[in-house]
């Protein structure tokens, strides 16, 4: 089990004058699956981007600690895996070339055994040498999972985790998310009942829009 803790303290975000959410507080640690729910435009993607350090909060702070030590923002990417419909990998490279480049840029070894296992689990092994531009949207979504899991992240953030996936793809994803949650914190931002059914706790973003929360 990991010793990872993700904490949000009074996190708020505004775009111009528009309030997206305010005073969001939570703390997730070690492992397990947690959810962020809310209707379209409620700020789920904004919150996960703040959690992953892609966006800064307007108020409050997010902190990530590993083994009791705070992780600086510039090192955060080593601890996080992220999947989202708006995440785009390099079309001109094959799946394997993409992952090799990512491993090199992260400064880690290309773990062939782990990545081949993931290619097999997501049914992409036979297509791993084909350019990503020839992939269907479902295959691209499965490749994003391999990208997110290849470096054994302590925090796996999944925004709309089953978009573009067929029922077989969804089953595979649910099985792997549950397996991954034994050793890392998994955070799911979704409206899908079947996605949220996996979660130990669910944060309703609608509750963080006004002063009455």
């Amino acid at each position, binding site marked *: 089990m990991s010793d990872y803790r993700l904490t949000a303290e009074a996190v708020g975000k505004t775009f111009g004058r528009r309030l997206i959410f305010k005073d969001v507080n939570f703390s997730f640690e070690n492992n397990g699956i947690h959810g962020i729910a809310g209707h379209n435009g409620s700020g789920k993607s904004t919150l996960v981007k703040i959690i*992953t*350090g*892609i*966006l*800064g909060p307007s108020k409050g702070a997010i902190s990530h600690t590993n083994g009791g030590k705070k992780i600086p923002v*510039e*090192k955060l*990417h080593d601890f*996080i895996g*992220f999947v*989202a419909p*708006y*995440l*785009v*990998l*390099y*079309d*001109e*490279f094959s799946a394997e*070339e993409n992952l090799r*480049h*990512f491993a*090199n*840029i*992260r*400064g880690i070894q290309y773990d062939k055994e782990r990545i081949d296992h993931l290619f097999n689990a997501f049914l992409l092994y036979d297509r791993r040498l084909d350019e990503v531009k020839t992939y269907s949207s479902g295959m691209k979504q499965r490749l994003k999972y391999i*990208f997110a899991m290849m470096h054994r992240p302590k925090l796996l953030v999944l925004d709309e985790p089953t978009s573009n996936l067929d029922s077989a793809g969804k089953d595979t994803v649910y099985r792997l998310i549950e397996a991954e949650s034994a050793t890392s914190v998994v955070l799911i931002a979704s409206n899908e009942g079947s996605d949220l059914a996996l979660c130990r706790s669910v944060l309703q973003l609608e509750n963080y829009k006004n002063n009455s929360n």
Partner: protein
Amino acid sequence: MKSFALFKKDLHSELRTRYAINALVMFILVTISVILFSIGSEKISETLTGGLFWVVIFFSAMSGLSRAFVSEEERGTVLTLHLIASPNTIFSGKLLFNLILVFAMNIVIALLYSVLFDSFIIRNFSLFFLAFVLGNIGIAAASTIIAAIIAKTGSKGTLYPVLSFPILLPLILILLELTKFAIDGTVIGESLVELTVLVCYDVVILTASYLLFDFIWKD
């Protein structure tokens, strides 16, 4: 090492897509051809040839160097970069890519110039070489940070030359002066002020870029 890996990714991507190389090669060929056609059989002065040399370089840089960040933004891969590297790594990798591109581009321009223009005669090669190297570093550094700024805007194509002009103008003016000295055969000792300004420009741009990039990249 991580920056070098990012540079290798960009180089690999460039060799596959020819995103910047094609634009640069075409721009260099077209600009030099237009200058040759407009000169015709007239003999232009050595100073003017030196000036036109940097004009070609400036506009070629404008056409190709913004690609480092603009292509990532247009393809939507910026988020992927956020997830695999720190801002410092990203800036260093992109800067390295632009440096190699600027040096390759300018060496080609210099070779074409020396072959095609009779009046492009460098009498103090060491001085020209120093100005060339320091100037390329300045162009690459300034272009990279400007590309990072404009990549997030709507009218990238227009904004890049507009924003680049005031930032690159002092550099181009010094380079014009030093090229004139090199053509005249002035010794390095008499060009120390200009060379010092060039070094200072590079240091200021590089320092400001590394300090600012974190903010530009984040939001």
